[in-house]
């Protein structure tokens, strides 16, 4: 079946550090999204990025669909960035297939 793999599974940073989260997928992609799940469990949309590069403040994302991966960059991390980051891909059907997530902890 469709595989979405995220790495690393866990990441601990000091405030102010930069990080890169990776998402590999096994098949072609029509839609790729990055989400942040906050401590209350809410899924917050970060990027809709089937291809190319987007930036939003301290966050940016790049998807290289031909090589089947996407990267999420977090610069100058803050404690409020803590949580779980999910990527999810949509292929030939409507459903999103989620990875297992990267749990980020930013320490003050």
């Amino acid at each position, binding site marked *: 079946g469709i595989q979405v793999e995220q790495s690393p599974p866990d990441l601990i940073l000091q405030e102010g550090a930069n990080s890169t989260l990776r998402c590999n997928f096994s098949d072609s992609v*029509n*839609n790729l999204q990055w989400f942040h799940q906050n401590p*209350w*469990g809410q*899924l917050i*949309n970060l990027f809709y990025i089937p291809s190319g590069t987007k930036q939003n403040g301290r966050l940016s994302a790049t998807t290289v669909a031909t090589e089947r991966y996407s990267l999420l960059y977090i610069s100058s991390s803050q404690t409020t960035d803590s949580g779980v980051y999910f990527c999810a891909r949509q292929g030939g*059907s*409507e*459903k*999103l297939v989620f990875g297992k997530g990267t749990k980020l902890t930013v320490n003050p």
Partner: protein
Amino acid sequence: EPEVTQTPSHQVTQMGQEVILRCVPISNHLYFYWYRQILGQKVEFLVSFYNNEISEKSEIFDDQFSVERPDGSNFTLKIRSTKLEDSAMYFCASSAGARTEAFFGQGTRLTVV
């Protein structure tokens, strides 16, 4: 900014009882979804709904589950006879098109005791 809203935010129910989880998708969206997340695990697709019918469902979405769009704004998930393993966070989502950005509600945390 338009958002997907879900009610209730938390629900505790006894095993064997029926529950209905409610969602109001973004008003001009045409595709509606339910996902669930068992504690500590990844988000899993349950069902997609378009044009007043189920367009896709997962193996999880068995006969105890049903969805309905009873009016022009609400989208519901019914679990007929809850089991302990149904305890999870249930997310509703909507999108304007079949392969456009999906937006998620804040979730309903269901606990079956």
